[in-house]
């Protein structure tokens, strides 16, 4: 694989993650339904996780697991640290989404609507 293809992969991964972050931000800032806002937050999280994993990529790298037969291959392995960070970040993102959804259930109970315009009791 020559340098050209690596650039394309890199641009593809980073570009997609930035696009995901932008789409998610657009959803959070403009959508009126509460559920769509929470989905937007999840999309932003997805974009950032993709970015984080993309940071760790090494050309022609393989998974950082020393299965039998791969004991000496440390310099051909991708970076394991972003993978560990993303694992933690996914779980945390999941926790926040769960709390957000429960708040939406409670808001729905009170106001019987999911539109943010009609729930604005407090000054936004």
């Amino acid at each position, binding site marked *: 694989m020559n340098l050209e293809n690596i650039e394309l992969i890199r641009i593809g991964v980073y570009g997609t993650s930035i696009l995901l972050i932008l789409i998610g931000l657009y959803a959070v800032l403009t959508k009126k339904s509460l559920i769509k806002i929470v989905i937007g937050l999840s999309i932003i999280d997805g974009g950032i996780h993709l970015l984080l994993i993309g940071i760790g990529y090494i050309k022609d790298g393989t998974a950082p697991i020393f299965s039998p037969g791969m004991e000496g291959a440390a310099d051909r392995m991708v970076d394991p640290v972003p993978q560990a*960070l993303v694992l933690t970040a996914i779980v945390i993102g999941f926790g926040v989404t769960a709390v957000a959804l429960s708040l939406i259930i409670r808001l729905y109970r*009170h106001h019987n609507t999911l539109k943010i315009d009609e729930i604005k009791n407090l000054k936004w």
Partner: protein
Amino acid sequence: MVGSPVLLIAIPLLAAFLVPLLGMLWKELVRIVPGLVLGYLVILSASLYIDVLQTGTIVETLAGWEAPWGINLVFSPLTGFITTLMTFIGFIIWIYSYRFKRNVEFEAAKKYFIFLMLLIAGSVGIVITGDIFNQFVFIEIVGISAYALTAFYTGRNSAEAAFKYLIMGSLSASALLIAIVIIYSQLGTLNMAEIAANIHTMNPQYRVMAMIFFIIGIGVEAEIFPLNGWAPDAYTEAPGPVGAAFSGIVVKAGIYAMVRMMFTLFDISGTMQVLIIVGLVTLIIAETAALRQTQLKRMLAYSSIGQMGLVLVAFGIGTQAGVFAALFLMLNHAIIKPLLFFSGSYLVFNSKEKKIAEMNGLGKLMPITAAFFALGSFAIVGLPPFAGFWSKLAVLTAAANEGMLLIIALILLVSIVEIVYYFRVINRIYFFKFDTQSSVVPHKPRGNAFLAMAILGILILVIGFYPDAVSEMLNRAADDLLNTPKYIKNVLSIGQTLTY
């Protein structure tokens, strides 16, 4: 020595996992165990701090790997000071809220104490950790506890306030993650000391971007403008002791993270100006907004935000005197604001709207509570001989030493605004007639709430009359923040266990 820094976090976590089980055995344990845990935290933190003041910074490695392979905790004059302050205020909050929802709803009380313990443990974690991703995890712990505590009451508006807080907190956490991505990709490490040592090898453009994302990330917890839109609603809807916890503990951790990042990690010239500008804008907007408030807790929330703006300005002055003043302000604010929240909660206890207008004449019906509120107000606007006077004086002196006359003028102007809106309330309490038609039934504080408020009040008087009692500690802490090379050396040159 009763332990080591990691216990400051491990013990509350253990207790939080234990409380549901203990609650099945004996319901009263749900209230007693958090008190024991928080009391232990204060004792541990204080004894470690005394140790640190005598011998030097404690750096503790975890899981047996020295930095930068493992995570390490740093207990220095600065972090130890803030941690002891936070655990102490946490214990006071426990004393105040001991009877919370007693005999009413067991499940709710159980959850309240769990969230409170984890809020404090998370804030302590933000302060003592030496690793940026670990700080992110603790910020999220504090965040989720805060969202749950904001939505605690079952009224109409609390879920909405919590949701607003959640969205802003979530977006800021994402920004923080992007900052971590940039730093890790360029420097290959997550350890704060190693980042500080290698930051000058990073391309300036990336450094600036990382710093901007960091500021957005921590700004929501530190309540700077324009990221503090969630704060007035959250403080109003949350229970009284929770408001005290937010303003006395959480925001201090946020300010510490911001300042640690600016001073130690990033060494760009011009960061001081950024702090001053952000602090001034926050201060002015918050204090003028406080003037227009009709609800008591909202007014206190805006006042809290404004004080934090002042703290940032003091940090931004950048000299030893400036940092000393900022830390002194933080200390005083952590003691005075909870007292105001506690007494304020009782003054508007049975009112639906919690409006200031309903507090007429309560000075005669609840003399002691009103006196506490008055004490807090005098202290926070900076009247001598109360504690707040010395810290305001310190800020003005530090600014004068640098010749920043515009800042001095603005601070004095804002102080006048503060006096106006606090004295407006005191005027109502003491000099207006009590409206017998209103629905506000005065509710006197019980023994434990009274004890909590009394401890805080005594502290305010003590610091007011003997400010030198704390100035030695503050000077050591200030010196520690400014001394980046010593921080790097302390962390990176250690072996595997607890070293000094």
